């Protein structure tokens, strides 16, 4: 089974010039917990997740206890007034992990297990062509398109 067989053919992404306010709006209105960041040539240059946005406000707490409280969200809302106009490139993860359409799904399983990734951008010559979602691995297994060995 190849990545092309399970990938989501969706180009949802944010652009490197997007502000954090725009990024929060984009993340709030679509189903993914994070999206790739692309440049003017549609090449994937980073990844921004809800966690990255929260990390911008509470890096210590999240790295220590891995979670946050309601009060944190309220602080975040206030903080967004300050960081809202900053560009996403200042907050995104750089050198994001990507896969190509021809890679075996086994490769994705390794990334999900080893790196804890939920969404992996799929690229062709560096250009975004889709996404692999962690849930699609489970679906492929449930649909008998993937063996337990592969998973």
């Amino acid at each position, binding site marked *: 089974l190849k990545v092309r067989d399970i990938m*989501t*053919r*969706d*180009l*949802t992404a944010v*652009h490197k*010039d*997007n502000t954090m306010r*725009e990024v929060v*709006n*984009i993340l709030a*209105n*679509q*189903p993914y917990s994070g999206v790739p960041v*692309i440049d*003017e*040539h*549609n090449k994937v240059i980073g990844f921004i997740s809800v966690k990255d946005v929260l990390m911008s406000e509470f890096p210590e707490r999240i790295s220590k206890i891995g979670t946050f409280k309601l009060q944190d969200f309220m602080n975040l809302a206030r903080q967004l007034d300050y960081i809202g106009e900053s560009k996403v490139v200042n907050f995104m993860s750089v050198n994001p992990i990507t896969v190509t359409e021809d890679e075996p799904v086994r490769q994705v399983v390794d990334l999900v297990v080893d790196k804890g990734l939920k969404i992996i951008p799929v690229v062709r010559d560096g*250009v975004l*062509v*889709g996404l692999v979602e962690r849930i699609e691995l489970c679906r492929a297994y449930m649909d008998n398109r993937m063996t337990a060995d592969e998973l």
Partner: protein
Amino acid sequence: LILTVTLNPAVDHFVLSDHFTPAKLNRVKDLERHPGGKGINIAVMLAKMGVDVISTGFLNRSSSLFVQQYLRDNGVTTSFTHIADETRHNYFIIDEATGNLTVIDEEGPTVSKGEFNLFLQNYKSLLKRVNMVVIAGSNPRGVEDQDWCQLFEIANHLGVKTAVNVQEDKLMICLDKNPYLVLLDTRSSSEVLGKKIEKEVDQKQAACRIMGEKTLFSILTLDYQNYMVSTTEGCNEVNLSDMKNRNQMFSGDAMMAGLVYSLNRNDDVKEAVRWGGAVAIANSSNRIKFINSMDEVKPCLDKVSIREVQS
């Protein structure tokens, strides 16, 4: 690779009834739900013919899961801008006993300036991937004519050909932007470019010539079976046989899909019109929408007749 733009997508509900009676309780015999909007319809038909196609526009989160999943399942790559206001729902009530169709169209959402700017940013990126963009369908509230014109200006600037499915009210501003292909539906218009036209075919030919002076390639829809095609070389009448008493919904979208399919292969205008007509005929044999594959289209190529009109 083709990009289709649907600024005002819809969720289309097809309600099939045996005897639909207004102001009475009507039992539903069958119900189907499909994504709608001209650009989306065209994208699905292109994908069914094996063309790589990306679909963009505005979607609300609650509708996006259904619409995008449907598109991806049918081979269309998605790249929509998500908006706060609700995507519209349209209802097509089909009385199978009489063949009557009742359509209830919702106007659609309001798009904010910020949402439109995010869309434009994405649109510019998508144009760098494609050779042609199809702009089709109505504008939601909040997207003004000058906003719509920007879609053509950006495509022209990036050297991407534009194909547009347009009504008379937007024809003039659209022609000012030098579209590559214009499909104009004249069924509910009484004039073309400010000139009153009658329903007789010779009057339509005159309208066709007016269009010919303004565009490289334009098509006027006279009715479901008859079209006028204008190019720099002259006018042609196009007739589609085998369309009567069949499903005529979305025949304009099917025509556009066939035209774009063929032009994307660098066919000449007459061949493109043949493909447009063939997809329209093939699509008319489906109960609701859309064509299922190229196998349905190819046998219909011979059912399209094109006749040059002497000036």
